């Protein structure tokens, strides 16, 4: 009954100056211009944003491994990357 739908886009919105763009959802649109207009109407009806990015969903590469935990694992045993690892005189408030 239905013909093919329009391509999928992911939408990122900067809430206000000084903040990062944040993923807010997705939508279907024929091209970037339409995606931009739809993103405005769908995701910023109450001044939720001052800037929008739209990206074709198929252009996003996501980390996805059999075992995500082992992909991020190398960070786990390097506790010396955190300031709390070090013992320094407390009174110096370093």
């Amino acid at each position, binding site marked *: *009954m*239905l*013909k*093919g*739908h*329009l391509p*999928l886009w992911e939408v990122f919105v900067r809430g206000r100056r000084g903040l990062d763009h944040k993923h*807010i*959802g*997705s*939508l*279907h*649109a*024929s*091209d970037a211009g*339409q995606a931009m207009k739809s993103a405005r*109407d*769908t*995701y910023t*009806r*109450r001044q939720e944003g001052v800037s929008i990015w739209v990206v074709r969903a198929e252009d996003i590469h*996501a980390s*996805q491994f059999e*075992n995500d*935990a*082992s992909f991020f694992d190398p960070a786990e045993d390097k506790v010396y990357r955190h300031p709390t690892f070090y013992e320094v005189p407390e009174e110096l408030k370093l």
Partner: protein
Amino acid sequence: MIFTDEQGQFDAIIEAEEKIEPRDWMPEKYRLNLVRQMSQHAHSEVVGQLPEGNWIGRAPTLRRKAILLSKVQDEAGHGLYLYSAAETLGVSREEMMNDLLIGKAKYASIFNYPTLTWADVGAIGWLVDGAAIVNQISLCRTSYGPYARAMVKICKEESFHMRQGYEIMQVLACGSAAQKAMAQDALNRWWWPTLMMFGPHDSESANSQQSMKWKIKRQSNDELRQKFVDQTVKQADHLGLAIPDQDLKWNEERGHYDFGPIDWEEFARVVKGGGLCNDARLEARRTANDEGQWVKDALMSYAEKHSKSDVDQVA
């Protein structure tokens, strides 16, 4: 913690009140359960535009018209948030739309009732959106990340829906005798169908027990319904309108209002397609789809032409 088995990891995430995210392993039944619930929810938002949309052209003032337009546009937005969240489960928008248009997918049966007077627009905002809020606040804590995030966004927008409805009722309830009667009549017609929105009693709902275990649902149908009744009684009192239920009374022991039996036969009949507006609602969706197809086609062929000419220029 690293789990060697997928099920163990999934269970641990649920147990720890963390969220399941799109590409995580999940039991197939969990996925299907979510697809059903989220697409039904999306369809309800979309079909829910129709009863109120019916009054946009006849809103009594420009202020009311602007408010109603804005509310109905929000409902379209809610549908879109939910479809896009459901798509992360690997179901396509076309499939979901198609299931709605062929009458396979369900949507909230409340929207199969007609909006006969302007007071119905008030009653819908006050009661139907009020009930939806109770349900949706609970779903902000659902275990599937994209669904929970969509709910948070939706809840932020819903409270204006309820307040504008209550305000309409207030104006009518303080108006002429005829206006007050119109408000009372709307309350009489919408009260029971609104209570049905929360679904069958817990004892009758096998689906919902599994959903609670998986934390897709966080509170049972009866709990949510009770919460709605408890909060709505004083709102009706304040309007000077009477809730059409002779059994409604405060139960000191339970700390809740008792209320009369729900007509589940009517509920089943409307769900199965026997409501006053089932056919009209689906017909409106089909027409919108068919008559809007040329716009999508034109947009797509424009985009294709455009991207080809971009390539030509580069070459």
